[in-house]
């Protein structure tokens, strides 16, 4: 990134914003991947 951060506050505002978005992506993608991973397993009884 070209932009210089002069304060820790600005740095964290920037990085944390990206991190929160990443967290959302992870929470959506991981279950989808789990479904893919266990797609051919034999079915279990679910609640």
């Amino acid at each position, binding site marked *: 990134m070209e932009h210089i951060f002069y304060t820790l*506050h600005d740095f*964290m*505002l920037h990085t*944390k*914003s990206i*991190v*929160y978005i990443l967290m959302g992506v992870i*929470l959506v993608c991981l*279950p989808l991947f789990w479904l893919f991973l266990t797609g051919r397993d034999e079915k279990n009884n*679910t*609640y």
Partner: protein
Amino acid sequence: MSSDAATTKKVITPFNIVAGIIVAIGIVITILRFTEGLGAVTNLDDNNPWGIWIGFDLLCGVALAAGGYVTSAACYIFGLKRYHSAVRPAILTAFLGYALVVFALHYDVGRPWRLPYPIFYSPGTTSLLYEVGLCVFLYLSVLFIEYSPVALEWLGLKRTRNIIVRMTLVLTIFGVILSTLHQSSLGALFMIAPSKLHPLWYSTYLPVYFFVSSIFAGLSMVIFEGSLAHRFFHHKMDEMHLKESRGVVLGFGKAASFIMMGYVGIKLIGIALDNNWHYLATGWGAWFMVELIGFVALPAFLFAIASREKNTTLMKWGAAWAVLGVVLNRLNISVIAFNWHLPSAERYFPSWMEIFTSVFIVTIGVLVYRFISSHMPVFYEHPDYQHDH
């Protein structure tokens, strides 16, 4: 709330009268709060911006509602199916608990209609309070969805109910993640003010302490509320529920005992790491020991004895004691050991209206809980869905 389908109930009971008075006065205080401002109703000031609406309603409310994620994790993630009958009451308590926390927040913040701002308009991502707000908002949604089968079964909406029940595992996992995050972040909130919180309570491990104590707070609340429910809702409980309840009490109490002892250990480690032993010899130190030994170690021992003797009555006393301990801990950190430096004339004590508002909010919770438990399948399995487990 008034008439039951099967039996005609009296509306004028002592409980209803008291509850009615509390609600009426609560409404008056609400009007005062929004016409005269916080200053007219609370003892908050510039040195003490947070009082018991944060210390009790928010912090204790969230800690004591932890039974939801703990019970559903035990049943669905760890596979301990013998606790299944405890899940719905725990989820109901948690859902109502968090809903009331958000409700209480509307009294405390200056402009409650702006509560969506941090999530939807201007996220201050540098703040732990942002994280708390986001997680509480998401978790309340998860809890609502987890609770909804209860209402859907009551309403007869089978297809929707079945769709949601199939999502149980995902919701449970998501709930544990969100709970870990916000339980710990509530503790982390206070890390910003080392100069204001007494060193025996201030620690780098505040988030860990809050998270671990939320676990045994939840376990204890399930036992405590279970004992109250057995007294007042026994007639609503089906055979499975009654059969499993002894196992729930003994199992949860045993787990709580162990976790509480571990918690005592990591608290001592926290003191050691900051070399704060000398504070134990002060007045504050004595108070700290009252909290840690008197309200964590001792109830943990009681739980242990109860577990060894398989005595559910002792368990229930232990649970009430442990719950008080968690409440004491949250109050210590937010209002008692907070601002410990200030001269006593500048210290905070809640106004009667602040206290009453908290009582009012809890009363509303009890009334809603009573309505839902009496009419919806919380303590029993709805006849249409009994094969589903």
